[in-house]
Every structure is written in C-alpha cells, then in structure tokens.
C-alpha cells in the first residue's frame, strides 16, 4: 500500500478517538458497558453492507440495491426465523436469507456484466423491485424474529460482541488480500483500467461479476444483524445504500474504482454509528447526524485528494477538460 492509502485510516482513527474522548468527558452515559456494547452491535449492519459495497466500488461500480436488500432480508427473516422453530428449520431459514442475497447478487451482476447496464441504474431497478416486494410481504411491521437467533447474533464477550471481533478480523484479512496477493492486485487493476487488465489476460468479466455477488451476500448477512436490532419483520429499515457508499468513500475508496480499504470502510462505518450514538446523549436531534456526515464526506474527499492536488499544482500539469484520448483505441481507425 502506498502512502496515500494510510491517510483515511489515520484520519478516521484520530476522529474516532477525539469524538470518543470528548463525549466520554462530558457524558457519563457514553462509556458504560451497555452503551458501548450497543454501539458496537448497531455498527454491525452498516459495517457489513459497507464492506460489501467496497467490493462494488473497487471494480468501479455502485450497488444501490443493498438498501432494499437488507429490508428484504429482515422481512424474509420474519417468515423463516419465527419463534418456536426447530434448530434445523432455523438453519434452513438462515440459508433462505443468504439465498435472497445470492440471487439478488447474481441478478445485479447479470444486468451489469452481461446486459451491460450501468451499475447505478441496474441496482436502482433492483432496489425498487425489492422494496416493492418487501412491502407486499409485510405492509406494516409484524412477525417477531426468533429470540434465540437474536441472542446468538448478539453474543458478546464482555462488552465486545463476537460478531464485531469477527468483522474486524475479516476486514484486516480482506485488506491483506487486497494489497498482498495477486487476486487482490488483479481486482484493483480491473477497477483502475479495465482495458489493460483484459489485455493482461485477466478475466475481467468474472471479477466484476463476483464483486457484485459478494456485495449482495454481505448485505444479506447485514440483514441478520438488522433483524436482530428491529426484532420484527419491518418493511422500513434505514437507508444503507448511500450510507454504505459514504462509509466506503470515507474509508478511502475511490468512486472511479481501483482504490479502497476494508479496514478503512470498517472504521468509517464505526465512526458514522458513533455520531448517531452520541447525538441523543447530547440531546441533539438526529437530523444533525445526517448533516454532520454529509459535511464530513465532503471534507474527507478534499483531504484524500490533497496529495494529488498538491502534486498537480507543483508540476503545473493540468489537463483541460477531458479531451485527452488514448490514441489508437478506436478499433476502426
């Protein structure tokens, strides 16, 4: 990883520590075992969706459908993870939820890779379909989720939810994969320059396809943790599409593809949850959370680009418009 890759990680760590310390000093309710455990658990859905989203961003795409997919999985859970089911039935029910994610992922990837739709449009369509389907299945919150499943998902070691430890390990391993293996380098190469990657003999189609499937599967796992929070088949779950893109970008992902960090995404997801967690402690309306997050994203983007901007000013190199072309790519010329 080159130096600029560390900027988001450092910035987010500093921000989390600063906001945490500030709150801890002023609000006794913050550093309680209950609140920290709750904060970490409430980070889970966003963390998982955002880690999935990072895959889509790495190959230069977006997945908007994750918002509705999480909802769909919660609604599905209210049918397949009912109270008083046998363990085996619950196991099958869980598979069904992951199956919804897998199917959605394959559907998205087919639209994007085989039918060549822009990912933002394709997943917007899927978003709408899934949202409608969720409302069809549950037009208002009903159908409690099995309490044993919720307890299992929320299992904690001290204040630390087991799932959170899992997601930290996952993010670290994923970053090692991304920056220290051939397949990781290949996925970045595809995001950076698809034509060159194909020329180098990579199966660019398969890589992009898989990225969207993985993204959707992560969203469906996020559905479990979301279900554990709302505990009922609710057709109105928070909007994870934009927040997950925000988390990935804050964590260092580039909207143009090829750049990003899973650890960064996780830190950013945690930071965004932290903001939402502390505002009620200060008796501030949650609307401020939204505004703060928006402002921070803009600030972060400017900061992350700083090295490039400085370099550009120094060398005085500036391309005007987008007129530079890659000569000779026009096949008939």
């Amino acid at each position: 990883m080159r130096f600029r890759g560390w900027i988001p990680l450092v910035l987010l760590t500093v921000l989390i520590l600063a906001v945490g310390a500030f709150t801890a000093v002023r609000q006794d309710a913050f550093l309680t075992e209950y609140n920290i455990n709750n904060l970490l658990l409430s980070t889970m859905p966003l963390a998982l969706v955002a880690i999935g989203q990072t895959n889509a961003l790495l190959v230069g795409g977006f997945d908007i459908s994750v918002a509705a997919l999480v909802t769909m999985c919660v609604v599905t859970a209210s049918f397949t993870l009912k109270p008083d089911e046998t363990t085996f039935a619950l196991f099958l029910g869980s598979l069904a939820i992951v199956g919804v994610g897998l199917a959605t992922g394959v559907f998205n990837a087919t639209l994007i890779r085989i039918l060549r739709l822009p990912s933002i449009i394709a997943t917007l369509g899927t978003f709408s379909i899934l949202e409608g389907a969720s409302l069809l299945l549950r037009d208002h919150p009903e159908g409690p989720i099995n309490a044993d499943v919720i307890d299992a998902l929320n299992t904690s070691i001290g204040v630390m939810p087991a799932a959170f430890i899992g997601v930290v390990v996952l993010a670290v391993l994923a970053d090692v994969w991304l920056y220290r293996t051939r397949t990781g380098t290949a996925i970045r190469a595809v995001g950076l320059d698809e034509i060159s990657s194909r020329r180098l003999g990579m199966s660019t189609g398969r890589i992009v396809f898989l990225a969207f499937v993985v993204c959707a599967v992560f969203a469906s796992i996020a559905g479990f943790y979301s279900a554990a929070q709302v505990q009922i088949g609710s057709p109105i779950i928070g909007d994870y599409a934009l927040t997950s893109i925000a988390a990935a970008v804050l964590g260092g992902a580039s909207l143009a593809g090829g750049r990003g960090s899973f650890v960064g995404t996780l830190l950013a997801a945690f930071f965004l949850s932290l903001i939402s967690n502390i505002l009620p402690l200060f008796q501030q309306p949650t609307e401020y959370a939204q505004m703060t997050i928006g402002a921070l994203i803009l600030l972060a983007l400017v900061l992350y680009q700083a090295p490039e901007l400085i370099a550009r000013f120094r060398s005085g190199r500036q391309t005007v418009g987008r007129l530079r072309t890659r000569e000779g790519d026009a096949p008939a010329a």
Partner: protein
Amino acid sequence: MSTPGPESPVVLSLGGVSKAFGAVQALRDVSFDCRPGEVHALVGENGSGKSTLLGIASGFLAPDKGFVEIGGRRRRRGSPAEARRFGLGIAYQTYSHVLDLSVAENLYLAVPGNERPAYGRMETWAASTLEEFGLDVSVKASAGTLSLVQRQLLEVVKSLLARPKVLLLDEPTTALGPQEVEQLHALVRGRSSAGVGIVYVSHRLPEVLGIADRISVLRDGVSQGTFEAAGMTEDALVALMIGRPLQLAFPERDGDGRVPEALLEVSGLRGDRFGPIDLKVEKGEILGIAGAEGNGQVQFLRALAGVERSEGRASCDGDELNSKSPLAALRAGVVLLSGDRTRDSLFPVLSVRTNTTIQVLASLARLGFLRRRRERRTVDDMVRRLRVRLASIEQPVQSLSGGNQQKVSLTRPFLRGDVKVILAEEPTQGVDVGARFDIYEALRAKANEGVALVVKSSDPLELAGLCDRVVVMSRGKIVDEIRGDELGERRIVEAIVGGGVARANA
C-alpha cells in the same frame, strides 16, 4: 501448458478472417501465418486493418468469420487469457499498463501462474527481470510516471514474460530513438533465433526491411500477399500499400484568398509527445499534417487550440496563444474541429439546430431572447450550403450519418465571423465518399475567405488533393515538407514510411 503437442510448422495461423465495425469492413477474408524462428512483418497504411488483425490474433477482438490457431491449437472462445495460455505474447501499440499500479505490480500481473514469484518477492523479482532486459527503471515507481520510451520498452518486456511461442509487436518503436530501436531489434533477433515466431507490425519500412524475413501487406482490410523480405524494396512495398486506382474529386486550388502573410506562427513549440516545432501558415493556405498515427500530430494540433499543455511560442495574427486555455485560443480566432466529434464537439442528443448555433446564440438573440425564426433561417442556410442530408433541423444529431454529423460540426466556424485559423483533425474520418467532397469544398471555401487551415489526416490521398502544402511528422517532429508539384499521395506515403528513420540515421 502441459501438452505442447507435436511441433507444428506454424506457431500462429489465421484463416479467412473477416471483421466489420458497424458499416466499416476492417478485414476481409485475410489469412496470415507465422513460422517458428521467423520475423514476419505486417505493413499497411493507417486504417488498413493491421491493429484489427492483431486484436483478433490476441483474442481481444472476436472475428466475424475465420479461425485462429496458436501453436497448432484452434482457439474456441476469443479471450486474451486463452491466447496467452496457448503461447501468444503481445505488446500493444497503446500498451497494457495499469498506470496507477507500480512497475513491479504491472510486471507481476503479466506473468502466468507457473512463472509467478511469491507476492512478497515481487519487487526483487521485478528488479532482476528488468535488469535482464537492460531496462533501468524503478520497480516501485507507478507506471504512469514512466517516460514514453520506458513505457514502450516495459510493454515489450511484459509481452516476453510468459515465454511465448509467438510474439506480436504492434508498432513497437513509435516512441523510440534510433539507439533504442537497435536495442529492441537485437532483442527481437535473439528471440527469433531461439525459435520464437515474431509478428512485427510497423509502418517504418526501413526498419521492417532491416529485420523481417517475410512481409505481408494489407490494404483496406484485404491482404495484398506475402513476400520474402530479401527481394523486396521500399518502392515495391509502397506501391502495394497504396496502389488503389480510385480517384477522389477535390476542389480547385484557385488560391483566391491566398495572401503571402503568415497568420499562424509557431516557434519552438513543444509538449507531450511533440516538439520542438516551427511552422508558419499563411492566410488562405491549407496546410496538411501527415504521419503515422501516434507521432504527436494530434497533440500538436490540440496544443495550438489550448486543449493540451505546451511550451514555446504560438501566435495567431500577432495575438499570443495562451497554451492553457481553449477559450483564449477561441478569442484569438483559432477553432479546433475535433476528430472525435461525438465526444468532443457535438451534443449527440440535441438537435441539428441547437448544435449549429450554440456558439453564436448571442448574435441571434434580442434582449436575451432567441429569435427563433432568424435562428432557423441561419441553420437552413448552413444546411443547404454544406449539403447536410437530414429530415428536419430539429432531428437529434446522433440520428445523422457520420458524414452529416461532421458537416454539422463544420457549420460552427462558418457562423463565427471572427475565425482566423481552423485546425481540423481527421475532417473526413468515417465519412462516406460522397459527403467528403462537400467537406473539402467547405474547407476550401473557408480558405478562400482568407482563413488559414491546418488539416491533420491519416489519409495521404486526401492531404495530397486538398492541401497547398503538407508537413510530415515523425516522433513528434516535422521531418519533411512537401509542396508544389511534388505534392502527391506517393510522395507523402514515402515520407511517412521512410522519413523518420532516414532522418534519425543521418
């Protein structure tokens, strides 16, 4: 990779390959083969289908008809990965570097699985590989920071990493100086004597004659035959490359607007891929820029229009052209007609009317409101004058044919009264023969009004017929100037294929 199979007499074989891009037939029933240990050169003019043929051989493009065999194995599904597995290496003219990754990572991605070092040893391995090829670049640098020479050599190194049985080199010397060309040729000879079949694509005939065993010639997507290099001369090759009887009509060079007074003056202008260039274009003159693709012609033209950065001096009618701003160039009266009209100059979904008048709306408005009737009259006039074929001026530009789109983009300099210099980049690219004459006539009419024109074209016939004078660019510099009675298609082609090397060796 485990079964090389019985030794095949050819390492690459293409049979009856055809390929069309839309209405353009890029290749028509072409067969081509390469034997182990030979250098088989492929020559042809720009657009004759060389790159398409390589694209098909390497699996990047799928042929409409015909087959490809690599090392005796028939290709099923075209993919670069499969071609590489079968033993084909290729150095692309436009490279295959991922510019944001490091040199080491780029090399690493180019090696097939069984040759790949452990990820942790990547940089050490990359450094020793580069040393082996005598390429002195830092493996940690990102590929985007390399010079063009380094990028070109790195591309060749990458193509050799998989130890291919057949190696395709697409214009491998465009960025190289004479010394590097020698270095590269030594490398190529070394590989061919080790039994690798080499397909060498180049427009530089002296280089080709110097290294090839056999030469195949393509013209307009049709093979003109394969010849032993030993008995070939540059003259004979040029004749095969151009030899088309078709004559196009061109407007009279009546020299009406010709005033021996320099309008566009360029001195010591240099930028990315070109320079230093000194040039003067007179009032009413049409100057042609010839050269093989990728020798800095486009960059030079765009630098004059302020679209690309440059250093040095350029002025139009005494006004200094600011190299940073297209707007300053426009104000000085310099208009660029981009070769990529749908991307750079037209708004494809907007109507012909809007596209025509968008730069001169102020002159058609009163109190800030457009006078629609006057606008329509203006557009109708232009449509008639340039013979744009359309159903209605409200039609979106994207629904017109390529030639008519080009005419619409040509209307703009006609409507602006203040144009002094027109820079036209491939004004008839993708334009059918009938529409070409209308465009030539429109350009000549503008010259007769006293405008200076610079036309960059890859078609020597067009330059010979349209221009008053033609300069030939090679490796970013002007290497030849052709005017008067000398000005002919053959003379231009000879300058393109011979000029760069002749000058470099002198």
